[in-house]
């Protein structure tokens, strides 16, 4: 029986709102003023990681009158302090008060997660920390918005799904393209048969992460390097190694990230899988075949020179190619649809112009990625990019990386979540963690 999940429903909201925990320190005078929800109905949120992505989300959450940001955690003291100040200034201005105090800052995420008054957390730490922090959060009864790529390894993805289900939490993966109407439309058109029988999909992202060789530098003041490394193998500090900049930094380093295959793949392969109806628990390709060498992290392979992911779909065996496309290109017997941010195009043109009727395939329509998450926190439904969706996408990306790195085809059992017949490739399903960091599976 298919689970149908849509926007919030008033009965569920009503029940959940009544049970919502009270915020940590919020003035009673703030109750319901200026369009704010009363404090007792606001969702209290902690931020774990306020670098590029967390810092990007932060102002939006401060503006959102459904939530109250109450805590900030980052291993960079300067960043967490500045974000606390930003929040306090914003809340003081909103309340037309001279001062607002009540945002706590933490170096250790465990301390933030131990607070019983926090309902939910936004996790925007480097990839090698995602699973550990998210599982810890779920265990402590927090609902989670976790930035993509959801995990660093396949085993972590499987463990995270189990944990979120075990504790009955809501987890939204930060693959926000699912909440963008163009991407949804493209997938609906494909699944409604508007381009005929789907023959192939091409996904345009660049290559996997690499081993990187950064010279040692003195650790900058206020930065907890040991904690930044966390479960990853020890390496000497270097500013670039731990920089979150999109064109380089840790995203390029294999110990912390899967490179562009996971960073952008978590968006574009996610849409490819949505379009072929192959996401969620038990979904995924059954074979991954490299047709050429591992591309550089800045390079997108030519069509037919990259990976071929093979799926069993409603159309038979459908290949998804890692190759040059402007985003995601679906090719069918009767036409093509290409979609990317702010762009959707079809051949012939009228495929995207012809509206879908009620009897065509309609996919989950999210009211916005953050809003969808907040709705689901209240109604306990699964969000548009539920943990199982994020996990199935990132497992596909990781399988691609393993095939690239090892330079050989991989056979995969998506139902069991195991590589078939290649023990050494299977050893890339996870990475042993350093020191005290243990993953609860």
């Amino acid at each position, binding site marked *: 029986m298919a689970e149908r999940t849509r926007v919030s429903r008033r009965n*569920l909201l009503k029940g959940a709102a009544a049970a919502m925990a009270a915020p940590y320190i919020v003035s009673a005078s703030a109750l319901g003023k200026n369009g704010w929800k009363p404090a007792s109905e606001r969702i209290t949120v902690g931020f774990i990681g306020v670098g590029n992505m967390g810092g990007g989300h932060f102002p939006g959450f401060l503006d959102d009158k459904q939530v109250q940001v109450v805590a900030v955690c980052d291993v960079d003291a300067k960043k967490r302090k500045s974000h606390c100040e930003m929040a306090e200034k914003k809340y003081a201005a909103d309340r037309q008060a001279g001062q607002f105090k009540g945002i706590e800052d933490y170096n250790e995420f465990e301390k933030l997660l131990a607070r019983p008054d926090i309902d939910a957390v936004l996790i925007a730490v480097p990839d090698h920390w995602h699973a550990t922090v998210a599982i810890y959060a779920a265990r402590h009864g927090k609902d989670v918005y976790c930035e993509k790529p959801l995990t660093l390894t396949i085993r972590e993805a499987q463990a995270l799904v189990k944990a979120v289900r075990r504790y009955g939490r809501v987890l939204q993966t930060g693959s926000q393209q699912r909440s963008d109407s163009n991407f949804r439309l493209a997938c609906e058109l494909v699944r409604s048969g508007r381009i005929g029988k789907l023959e192939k999909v091409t996904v345009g992202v660049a290559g996997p992460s690499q081993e990187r060789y950064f010279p040692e530098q003195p650790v900058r003041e206020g930065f907890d390097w040991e904690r930044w490394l966390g479960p990853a*193998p020890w390496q000497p500090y270097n500013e670039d190694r731990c920089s979150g900049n999109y064109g380089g930094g840790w995203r390029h380093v294999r110990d912390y990230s899967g490179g562009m295959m996971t960073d952008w793949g978590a968006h574009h392969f996610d849409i490819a899988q949505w379009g072929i109806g192959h996401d969620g628990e038990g979904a995924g390709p059954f074979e991954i075949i490299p047709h050429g060498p591992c591309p550089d992290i800045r390079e997108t392979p030519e069509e037919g020179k990259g990976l071929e992911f093979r799926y069993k779909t409603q159309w038979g065996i459908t290949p998804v190619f890692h190759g040059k496309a402007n985003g995601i290109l679906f090719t069918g017997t009767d036409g093509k649809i290409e979609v990317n941010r702010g762009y959707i195009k079809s051949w012939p043109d009228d495929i995207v112009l012809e*509206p879908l009727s*009620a009897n065509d395939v309609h996919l989950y329509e999210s009211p916005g990625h953050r809003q969808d998450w907040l709705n689901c926190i209240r109604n306990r439904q699964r969000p548009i990019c539920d943990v199982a969706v994020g996990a199935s996408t990132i497992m596909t990306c990781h399988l691609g990386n393993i095939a690239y790195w090892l330079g050989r085809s991989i056979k995969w059992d998506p139902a069991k979540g195991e590589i078939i017949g290649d023990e*050494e490739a299977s*050893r890339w399903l996870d990475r042993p*963690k350093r020191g005290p960091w243990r993953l609860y*599976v």
Partner: protein
Amino acid sequence: MKCRYSAPATIATLLVVWTFVQPVTAASAADLEKQFVAKIDELMPGMGAAKIEDRKDAQMTFEHLCFENSTPAKQIERKALCKALMQRVGSDVALPARVWLLRKVETIGREEVVPGLAQLMGDKEEIIRETARRALANNPVPAAAAALRAELDKAQNPVWKLALVKALGWRRDVAAVPQIVKLTADGNAEVAHASVAALGTIADSASLTALAQLRKQTPKGLENAVNDASFRAAQTIATAGKKWQAADIFEEYNKAAAPEALRITALQGIAAAKGAYAVPELLMIVAEPCPRMRLVAACCLQRIPGSDVTRKLTAALAGLNAEQKAVMIEMLGRRGDASARAEVAKYLQDKDADVQVAAIGAMRYIGNGSVVQALVEIAGKDTGAARDAARDSLKWMTGKDVDAEVLKLAQQSGRIKAEAVRAAAVRLMKPAMDAMLSCTHDSDESVRVPVIYNVGKLAKPADLPKVMRAFAKLEGDQTRSTAKDALVRICSRIPEESKRGKLLIDGLASAEPSTKVLLIQAVASVRGEGALEALRKCAQSEDSQIKQAAVSALADWGPVYCSTWAYSGPYKKDGAKHTDLFDVAFAPEEPNGKAEWKQVKDKGYDVDLKKLDKGDNICGYLRTQIVSDKQQDVILCIGSDDGVKVWVDGVVVDSKNMSRGHKRGEDEVKVTLKKGVSTLLLKVTQGNGDWFASCGIKSPQGGPADGVSFEAK
């Protein structure tokens, strides 16, 4: 670094390495091992270089060697390589090289590396001890686990103990359970925590027994660890088929007095383990006063599959109070099992508003043609939440029987007709187009606006005359604004951009004043040939409404874009990038240059140069004539992908040597046009990807320039 991709498959070539490594042949595993040792020795200085950045080539070469020789078909090579590798991880080797070699062992070593790794766990260097531990943790052979257990027996340091317990737990090493059970009482809290956690991961019968004992007598400070480990163990055995044993563990936490987080976890586990058998106890929780637990229980019920479950749930509805019933009906809808339809439909007219709305909303997922009339009647009669829910369900219910029923009701009259037509519109039912056009003046704005909006989605350009008739004399700001958008949308389906406004302009002639205003607004959005002239004519109208609309449209017009061009190209130079071509004067920009020109057939305002020529690092020229009836200052609005150089009568007026995406009007340049004909020439460079250009003219005040037009040359 490039590698040879395809491995030669000859028997003689046992070892295939990357192009900078000579292929090696060997007669035996021992010979192979020697060759690997030699190769490692060759790479050793680089792998252990003092400067990190100097290690890359050697370390990556070695990594490729490992990957290439650890395929399923190359187990002899893998073993020989690992043995060779273990000969070179001693303390006489530079530390970075030792670490790198051990990290490769982590992914390819098996039995052959275990004794060496066991020894290295006693190395004086902490990083070696730790890397060896990780390599053993990821080694699938039983001997690796035995080595970790032996090390745990000796371990004194709590941090090291913790790391070993973690490794054994991660491996789910059943044989380690007795040691780990003892460590749950370790004096170091972290070690005790890790040991309890490891039992939860291993989840064999001995671990379960130990955890059961710990639940009965939980040492202070270990409560959370014990609970969590118990949940994890229960989930693991449930997945493995021991569902009732798992359910027993979860049941221990399903007590009304239990902390909420524990109980929520317990309910998830009970639902997953017991399936349909969990329904009665979950229903009891739905009847509890706590809204949060009610919600959690309802969501658990929602996810237990099976029509038998649906039957039990529908049968239980009668015994619930209104608040509980509303939650349950909503959940029944979300289950998506149509077998609940008849029972849920009984509540479509329930006296309790919440129950009624829940039942109406549930039809979105489980409704069919049989409930359409009831929903249409509710939408036509009720207001507020019931009407909104009915309209929503009418929009999303699927099935041809739903369409047929909607069409039938659309032939009726009054509110039934209006709501049925509204439903047909939002369902985008083309056969209902005429009915939709007959409802564009419905008295209820919440009917006519979506109808008009969806006419815009469904109508073809050929339908425009009758659509314009149906839109005559519309009233209400939102209605008129929606109608304008609908007209624009219909016109946007006309392929040729310059022709899109024609039907609207034709319509202007016969429209009465209020419709004319609507059409003026639509023409101003659609534009195309004749639009500007038509608006200028309307701006002379004696009717103040029409005049004001046209003047306002003209003020907002912005540039007039050129859609008539001649093209010459492509031009290139060997080895030159597009930015190098920017200042190379090809024939079209030479005073007497002989260039071949062809008319651009596409009449769009954005010239897609890739339709004219393909290639990277090239450039092309676009030429047209500007005719002005007087000397005047105008603004040229230029967009290009990539760079652009612009001449008016041979004088460069814009120069952007760069890579960029196309954006209309990105460059604005003031020029003085002479009276008569001026020549406009654009040189557009192309690096790779898209290749576009556009050019428009506006007055210095922002509106269309008076008396200026483009003509092909």
